[in-house]
């Protein structure tokens, strides 16, 4: 095979598709792995952040003099200590990291202190003199849209008919809705609401910053993207990007919530002023109050269907609040809403709203789970009304290669039908339900992202490989990279070590998001390995005195090829590495580019549940995830992503929600009152990997990290609704809400 040839359809794999033990596993289970809060430095100070107790307030007075005078206090910062010429792209990030003239939500950072002990820092926070002028607030997405609602960014309305809190409106679709609905035998219309939920990563945000007055510094933090953290922090602090070296720690969960910065620039600004390293670690309460949950939503869906199950038209109006800043994922939600269905007449409208809540951050397939919940619920209602099988109905209407997606493009090769067919054949779907139990089915869709990527693959004289990547490992990617390098080079998995290196050691890398790492860093690893193989073949050619074109790489060896190549003993990877110092010097393979061609992914989930009608508590009895992975590099990790998405979805569907009081303050900023599922809440989540190769990747990989959270909200809502005989339209379906519905 040529060095740059792609053959994702017919390739026979050796290493890829196996399930070796993860290289980071031992350190993690023995407590040796270094997470964000584990890092310390000599002379390090401790930072603490003063946060607004008000949902919306003007800062009338802010005096830090008394705090600065306290023993042990080495620096106090406010907004004035950040770059006043920050780029437009990061202006909202800065406003969120440290408030300017107004506190925009309960928990908004106002000032920060660095002191010689955590206690001294907290004491100093109490010495900061601050006066607020409390302003009217709004936390509900629908209430924020109404003309006359409290204005967060006062001004003229940007979208006609709404308050100034509506930031933008976006629309997708094609065909003629009137014609489509007129052709239906049944038209079903329903409204839905979903609560804001947090990504719920177990490790809070933590950072140690060390920045000197000349603008050179280091930052250690738990992040999904240390290159992006470097770029944002350098902008917020007004220093050169390359003067700041950022190291990513091990990460205890991110799920999108660690793709931006919160405490990182604060630690650096405190350090710059104090002249010493500063550590800032968020409490769980801070994480809930001041880091990005996902949006809450309000959605109307209308679908027309013929008696035989043919969908004739679909319409979705989606409203999402993104906290006090524009940028909710409502545009992507609108694109995903009807993605599983081939519709001649379809429209989805997304409305982006701001209100007095923390700035939303990405959460696994941002926007798609809520859109999916609303659309797939209405599909289930139609199937019930027309007494149709929910899988057959979805198969009848499924998007496939050549049909037009609801958001515009014509689909390339996709695997939705394969997931539905697998669901239909699954032991779960063919099993009988007991009285009182309900079954729910849902499809789900998410894009994949590629992004800027750099990889270096350095060969060692002993025949081992040091693979350097710049995408933090949030899902076992180091093992997957080792497998792809082993596959390409034809050497054992154990001979390769993958390291997530710092920002000074590699070219730029986009964050680990958008299900992109196995796709993009994987493609980069394969290309870097091919670059190295080409160089190895060159060394063999020199050794044999023949043309480079007459050498091929097979089975981990350079071999002569062709009529005029001559009869030479193949040179193994080990031998070529051992002699590389004398045959031309060190050999490394590189890739630096933006791979394009990420493949989208579909999933189908099946859920059985039952409800205790006395308490309103739901028990998930059986759960099956079927998803198209393109090609599963490390099947155990792919299954883990499937299970993780389902587990988070179960929490979102049944219990998790941001609860605000009438004062606009968050009422449940802790895991005792914000209930994520624990192991005893969950059944063993069954998985089936479907493999419809993505033609845009050498091995056919599609990203799998996000699609698994798209169907659960709808699948569980359909299951619960079918169990109790009442349609549940608001998430979470917590016991009080179910009891109310049963009343």
């Amino acid at each position, binding site marked *: 095979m040529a060095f740059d040839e792609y053959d994702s359809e017919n390739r026979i794999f050796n290493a890829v598709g196996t399930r070796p033990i993860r290289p980071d596993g031992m350190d993690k289970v023995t407590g040796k792995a270094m997470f964000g809060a584990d890092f310390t430095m000599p002379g390090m100070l401790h930072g603490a952040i003063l946060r607004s107790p008000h949902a919306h307030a003007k800062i009338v007075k802010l005096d830090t003099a008394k705090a600065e005078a306290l023993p042990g206090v080495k620096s106090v910062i406010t907004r004035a200590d950040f770059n006043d010429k920050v780029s437009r792209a990061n202006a909202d990030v800065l406003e969120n990291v440290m408030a300017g003239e107004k506190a925009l939500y309960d928990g908004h950072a106002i000032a920060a202190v660095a002191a010689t002990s955590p206690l001294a820092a907290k004491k100093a926070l109490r010495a900061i003199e601050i006066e607020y002028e409390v302003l009217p607030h709004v936390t509900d997405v629908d209430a924020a849209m109404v003309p006359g609602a409290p204005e967060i960014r006062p001004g003229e309305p940007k979208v006609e008919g709404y308050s100034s809190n509506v930031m933008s409106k*976006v629309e997708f679709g094609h065909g003629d809705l009137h014609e489509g609905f007129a052709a239906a035998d049944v038209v079903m219309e329903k409204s839905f609401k979903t609560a804001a939920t947090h990504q719920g990563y177990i490790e809070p945000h933590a950072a140690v910053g060390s920045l000197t007055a000349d603008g050179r510094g280091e930052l250690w933090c738990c992040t999904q993207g240390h290159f992006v953290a470097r770029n944002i922090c350098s902008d917020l602090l007004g220093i050169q990007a390359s003067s700041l070296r950022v190291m990513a720690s091990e990460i205890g969960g991110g799920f999108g919530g660690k793709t931006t910065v919160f405490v990182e620039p604060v630690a650096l600004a405190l350090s710059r002023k104090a002249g010493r390293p500063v550590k800032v670690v968020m409490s769980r309460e801070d994480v809930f109050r001041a880091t990005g949950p996902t949006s809450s939503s309000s959605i109307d869906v209308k679908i027309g269907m013929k008696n035989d199950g043919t969908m004739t038209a679909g319409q979705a109006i989606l409203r999402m609040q993104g906290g006090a800043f524009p940028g909710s994922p409502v545009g992507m939600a609108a694109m995903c809403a009807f993605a599983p269905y081939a519709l001649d007449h379809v429209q989805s409208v997304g409305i982006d709203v701001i209100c007095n809540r923390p700035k939303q951050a990405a959460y696994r397939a941002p926007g798609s789970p809520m859109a999916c919940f609303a659309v797939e619920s209405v599909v289930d209602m139609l199937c019930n009304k027309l007494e149709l099988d929910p899988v057959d109905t979805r198969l009848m209407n499924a998007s496939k290669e050549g049909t037009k997606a609801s958001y515009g*493009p014509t689909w390339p090769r996709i695997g939705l039908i394969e997931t539905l067919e697998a669901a239909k054949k699954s032991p779960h779907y063919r099993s009988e339900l007991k009285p009182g139990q309900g079954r729910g089915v849902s499809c789900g869709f998410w894009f994949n*992202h590629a992004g800027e990527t750099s990889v270096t693959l350095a060969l060692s004289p002993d025949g081992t490989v040091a693979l350097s990547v710049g995408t933090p490992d949030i899902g076992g990617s180091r093992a997957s990279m080792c497998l792809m390098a082993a596959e390409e080079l034809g050497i054992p998995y154990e001979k390769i070590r993958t390291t997530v290196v710092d920002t000074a050691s590699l070219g730029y890398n986009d964050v680990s998001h*958008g299900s992109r790492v196995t796709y993009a860093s994987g493609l980069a690893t394969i290309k870097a390995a091919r670059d190295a193989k080409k160089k190895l073949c060159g060394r063999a050619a020199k050794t044999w005195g023949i043309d480079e074109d007459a050498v091929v790489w097979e089975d981990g060896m350079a071999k002569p090829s062709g009529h005029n190549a001559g009869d030479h003993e193949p040179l193994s990877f080990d031998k070529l590495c051992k002699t590389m110092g004398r045959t031309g010097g060190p050999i490394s393979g590189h890739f630096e580019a933006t791979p*394009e061609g990420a493949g989208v992914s579909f999933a189908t989930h099946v859920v059985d549940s039952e409800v205790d009608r006395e308490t309103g508590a739901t028990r998930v009895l059986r759960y099956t995830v079927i998803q198209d992975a393109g090609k599963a590099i490390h099947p155990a990790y792919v299954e883990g992503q499937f299970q993780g998405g389902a587990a988070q979805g179960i929490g979102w569907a049944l219990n998790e929600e941001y609860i605000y009081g009438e004062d606009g303050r968050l009422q449940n900023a802790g895991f005792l009152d914000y209930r994520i599922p624990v192991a005893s809440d969950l059944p063993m989540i069954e998985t089936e990997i479907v493999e419809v190769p993505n033609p*845009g990747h050498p091995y056919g990989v599609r990203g799998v990290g*996000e699609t698994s959270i798209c169907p659960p909200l709808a699948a569980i809502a359909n299951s619960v609704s079918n169990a109790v005989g009442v349609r549940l339209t608001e998430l979470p379906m917590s016991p009080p809400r179910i009891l109310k519905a049963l009343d």
Partner: protein
Amino acid sequence: MPPEDVTIDLYGTLAAIAGEKRVVVEAANLRDVYAALKVRFPEMAEHLDGNVSVSIDGRIYTEALFEPVSAKNEVVLLPRISGG
């Protein structure tokens, strides 16, 4: 490759600026597409500068100014796609 007349499908926000859902521009690659749209619809500039993704025959590109396009391609402009 010489420029050709390329049909561009616009998503809602861009369609509202253009006043139509589909426009034709002369282009050989995506950079040409963006440049032509900016000249014709100056209000689109803030969206086209780093805030869009584009689907070419169903494959989505985000950072690819020099990706070739021709009259044979289906080109759809979309809001920038990111993830979590």
